């Protein structure tokens, strides 16, 4: 699965990744040995980062960055030239948890609208607002939106009544439906490639484990059974595999398993935190956030 010590790694990586990322990796790895057997750094600024996602194609990665001690900002990494720019340069309140439809045409994210009050915003890629889901009363906010492949729905996590459920709305913010009814916290939902299923993390059975269920709600199947957090699952573009973060070996590392939960394999191996896996649209690579060397940067990880 992982080939950190394979001397052909760099050449193979260059062959596999899209043209854009070849350019990006060339920009960022000129100082690395030609046969570097480590994840490839895509950013170098070291600032605290959360939740990278591809914006439809393999050419753009959008993520949240702690731009100032008081402000999360959505950033866009252009893989063609390695440039990084703010998605909303004029934003004055925090924005985080970006999510795109598979074709990149619908964009959801969270936006702070007051003290401990966080909105779910749903936009067209052009910027036009399609809908929103405002927070409830008092301290309130959503987490972890995901856009369905057909661009008709958005699923997200929201806490009320002491439990944290998954909800689904249409992209205009209407027709809110509860998808889960369990104890604990349900979070990090993402759709399968065909939009029929959702994979998510839940503490319903104790600590965080990975589950899958029909996209419209229903019985959930537990996919992991380990001590320690199993969180942030993401279906691969073909729906056959799931990448996720697990603490089963003592710290946060990236794993990939089959969609039925079988054959989990560790992808990263670092004493530092590796987290937030996101599949490249080609299904052969992951982008992650890694805390290597005490800094928080995006890295590209190639898979067999």
């Amino acid at each position, binding site marked *: 699965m992982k080939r950190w010590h394979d001397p052909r790694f760099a050449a193979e990586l260059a062959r596999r990744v899209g043209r854009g990322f070849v350019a990006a990796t060339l920009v960022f790895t000129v100082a690395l040995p030609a046969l570097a057997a480590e994840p490839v750094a895509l950013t170098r600024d*070291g*600032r*605290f980062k*959360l939740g990278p996602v591809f914006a439809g194609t393999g050419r753009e990665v959008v993520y949240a960055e*702690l731009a100032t*001690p*008081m*402000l*999360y900002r959505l950033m866009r990494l252009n893989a063609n030239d390695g440039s990084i720019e703010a998605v909303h340069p004029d934003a004055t*309140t*925090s924005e*985080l948890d970006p999510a795109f439809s598979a074709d990149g045409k619908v964009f959801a994210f*969270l936006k*702070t*609208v*007051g*003290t*401990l*009050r*966080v909105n779910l915003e749903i936009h067209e890629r052009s910027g036009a607002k399609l809908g929103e889901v405002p927070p409830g009363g*008092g*301290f*309130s*906010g959503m*987490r972890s939106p995901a856009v369905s492949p057909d661009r008709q729905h958005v699923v997200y996590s929201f*806490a*009320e*009544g*002491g*439990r*944290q459920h998954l909800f689904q709305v249409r992209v205009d913010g209407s027709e809110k439906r509860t998808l889960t009814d369990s*104890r*604990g*916290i349900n*979070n990090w939902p993402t759709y399968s490639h065909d939009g029929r299923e959702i994979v998510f993390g839940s*503490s319903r059975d*104790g*600590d*965080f484990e990975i589950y899958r269920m029909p996209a419209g709600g229903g019985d959930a199947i537990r996919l992991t059974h380990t*001590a*320690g*957090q199993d*969180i942030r699952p993401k279906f691969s573009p073909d729906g056959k595999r799931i990448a996720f973060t697990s*603490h089963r070996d*003592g*710290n*946060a590392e990236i794993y990939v398993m089959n969609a039925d939960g079988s054959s989990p394999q560790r992808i990263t191996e670092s004493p530092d*935190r590796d987290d937030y896996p996101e599949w490249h649209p080609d299904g052969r690579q992951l982008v992650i956030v890694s*805390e290597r*060397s*005490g*800094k*928080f940067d995006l890295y590209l990880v190639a898979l067999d």
Partner: protein
Amino acid sequence: MFDIGSFRARTCGTTGRRSFLRLAGSVPLALGLSPLAAMSVEPRRPRAKSVIFVFLWGAPSHLDTCDPKPDAPSEYRGPFSSIATRTPGLFFTELLPRIAQRSDRFSIIRSHATTEPGHPDAGTAALTGFKELPGPVQPNFGSIVAKHRSQHGGLPAFISLARGVVMDSGRRIEGYGGGTLSQAYDPLLAGCSAEGGVDIPALRLMDGLNPLRVRDRAKLVEQLDDVPRALDRLGFDSWNRNFQSAYDLLLNPVARQAFDLTRESEATRARYGYTVFGQSSLLARRLVEAGVPYVQLNYSRHPEAINPGFEFGWDTHLYNFELLQDQHCPILDRAFSALLDDLHDHGLTDQTLVVMMGEFGRTPRISANSSRDHWPPCYFSIWSGGGVQPGRVIGASDKLGEYPTSAPIPPLMVGTTIAELAGLDTQTRVEMNVLNGGHVIDGLL
């Protein structure tokens, strides 16, 4: 608990009746010792040359960090697994694996309680040992130590690492500084960026000045007519003291080197992590190494914000579990474990007391927001070095983490113990009229 070893016979005659009674009251009669017998004990040398008080402002959830309740019902327990530490029978949550692996270097108290439910009031209690009201506000533990010690090599005796006076959205912690000891013992404030750049607001006010241009303090004052106004904007009452401290630094390049994190290796800086708290923790180590007696290392204001739209550290009314697993605990785990290691590597552990705690705990029962709110009746602290016996677990909370099952340990005992270890024995405290009525936390020593 009892500090009979701290009385000094030579001061008996100077002890007033009221304070004498206070002293006598702290003597364990069960031991059969008269107050006079106790006072004949030789003075105790300070075991801690320096103190680093790691203030987890905002108040971390004890259940989700250092006092997990894996057998509690799901509406209390939270989603995190428990992991073993190096201390037999002591478990933390999985969010603090590095600190857990260093538990043989510290002791933990799990039976703290405070009476104050709001941040500024509880903050004052946590930092002074006393309620904010009725006034006057008592001095910060750091101010007490600072008065007892003197400046060292041009460095202030009390430095608080934060971006301005620590405050919540409404107001500051009144117990941030000198209190009844006067503003002369307020801390010098210094902020640190995630990249390790240090900002001293009082020094910033002197931009454009240097020792060659400024021959004496009076002249400097003349040139800075707007300094008081500027300091007021920053939230200082005590511009004179901060101004003087900054002035001392301005004139002392050697002292200023203590603030220069670029003198550390890349490996060392990486161990702490390139976060505000991480680099601030490294700065704290450099400051105590340079001889600063007391450093208050604040987790916020504002190291790593945030609840979106809000900031003060561990106050996780919203997104408690996400914030702990994504930000606060990984940042703390890395930085605090690096601090313990680094102090050890520099031979500073024995002479440096490290205390880490918040101003209260958080509700054991998970809130409607799937988070945790304020919980004054039960919280924890961690103590390392400076004369503390490591590997101990002092006090305990009940099965839900709601209340201590042993005698609650209030903030006044925290301050008294810090002062005792820093060399302020009972008589000295009486003479200074500070920490009155406080007892040392017996089990730590």
